[in-house]
């Protein structure tokens, strides 16, 4: 599939259909999860009452900011080894979307934690290791975009940015471990989505209410589709921009 789409022409043909479909499906799914999450499901008093409704954005965006950084590094790697121009276009498009989702994850996390975990806003940000990891990830995205913007030609920017993304991804696990060690007293609950399927009887309060889980899964799917649609849209605009620049260069040369 990916190698099939590595051809820019095929990609443009594919994405012309895929972008609106992904957008439509994504909006419907996110909308459904938000509608249910914000208005229908009962608030969980243990997790901050109504504030816990931020979870339906927070958890999907947390998964996406990690996933998008991995995708960024993957695309950079592909470009660096095989020089598929489209891989660089993809990496370039992923960066702002990824930065957006890290910001979203951080903001919703702060809202959720504001009351739910009994900590003030300030304590939450500086006291929670997972949110700090997200914040570091945000700066990795930011540095990536700043480096791309600072270099004068597309080729240089692509190469430098690819090196940076690869250096970044090998450091992400270390950053994660270090931040976890720094603040062992996380106010985060342990990941509860995974434990839903565990067969042995759980003590009260662990695991997740299936009502919540359902909305979360809608959110996961919807946000993933939305992110994919936005990335492809940016890629399309980048391909068009490059074509335009090429025409412009030729025209200026001829004049």
């Amino acid at each position, binding site marked *: 599939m990916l190698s099939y789409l590595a051809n820019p022409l095929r990609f443009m043909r594919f994405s012309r259909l895929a972008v609106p479909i992904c957008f439509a499906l994504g909006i419907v799914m996110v909308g459904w999860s938000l509608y249910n999450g914000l208005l229908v499901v009962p608030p969980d008093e243990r997790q901050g009452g109504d504030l816990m409704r931020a979870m339906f954005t927070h958890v999907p965006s947390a998964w996406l900011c990690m996933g998008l950084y991995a995708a960024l590094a993957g695309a950079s790697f592909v470009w660096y080894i095989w020089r598929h121009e489209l891989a660089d276009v993809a990496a370039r498009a992923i960066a702002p979307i990824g930065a957006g989702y890290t910001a979203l994850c951080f903001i919703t996390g702060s809202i959720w934690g504001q009351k739910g975990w009994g900590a003030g806003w300030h304590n939450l940000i500086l006291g929670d290791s997972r949110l700090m990891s997200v914040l570091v990830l945000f700066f990795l995205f930011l540095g990536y975009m700043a480096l791309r913007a600072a270099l004068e030609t597309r080729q240089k920017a692509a190469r430098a940015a690819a090196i940076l993304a690869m250096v970044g991804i090998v450091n992400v696990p270390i950053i994660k471990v270090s931040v976890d060690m720094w603040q062992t007293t996380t106010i985060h609950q342990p990941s509860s989505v995974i434990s839903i399927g565990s067969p042995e009887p759980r003590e009260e309060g662990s695991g997740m209410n299936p009502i919540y889980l359902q909305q979360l899964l809608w959110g996961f799917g919807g946000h993933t589709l939305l992110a994919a649609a936005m990335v492809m849209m940016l890629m399309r605009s980048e391909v068009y921009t490059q074509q335009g620049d090429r025409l412009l*260069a030729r025209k200026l*040369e001829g004049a």
Partner: protein
Amino acid sequence: MSNAPLLHGDGLGAVRGERVLFRDVSVTANAGELILLRGANGSGKTTLLRQLAGLSQAQAGTIERAGLHHWIGHTNGLKAHETPRSHLRHWARVWGSARDVDIILKEIGLQRPANVPCRMLSAGQKRRTALARLALEDRKLWLLDEPFNALDTDGQDLLAARIKVHRAAGGAVIAALHGASPIEADREVTL
């Protein structure tokens, strides 16, 4: 002596941004030859020379080099704190050359300012220091970017004589040049 060219570049191309600088350029340098790269400002002479030297990646085409080469770019490669003598000593050490740096300095006319930091030297003296590197080690291929720049007539004659000796000894020179050449070239590559 084998007949293989010292350098052979085939179907070379360069793109800067979305702008195509040149495409499908081929350069061959055989022993004893002087090749000049010609073209207007911005036509990509320096880019082509850097591709031949392996400093820039060729966006198209292939380059084969028979061995090491000397590179004199349009920047001289001198650090501000270096003197001509310390500069040559440094690269002699890096390359493992046993040549006498003082003799080289004398031959290129840098005996007097040999211990003056480069930031106090004139452009011509810096250029001579860079050109003195050519004498540190015997390398068959010289890649020179505007080598006559900043040199006085004395210096130009000196360099022309050096190039002549080098070619007679079976070496080859590829030079990017925008002005008139003091030496007759075997071939010109026009961009």
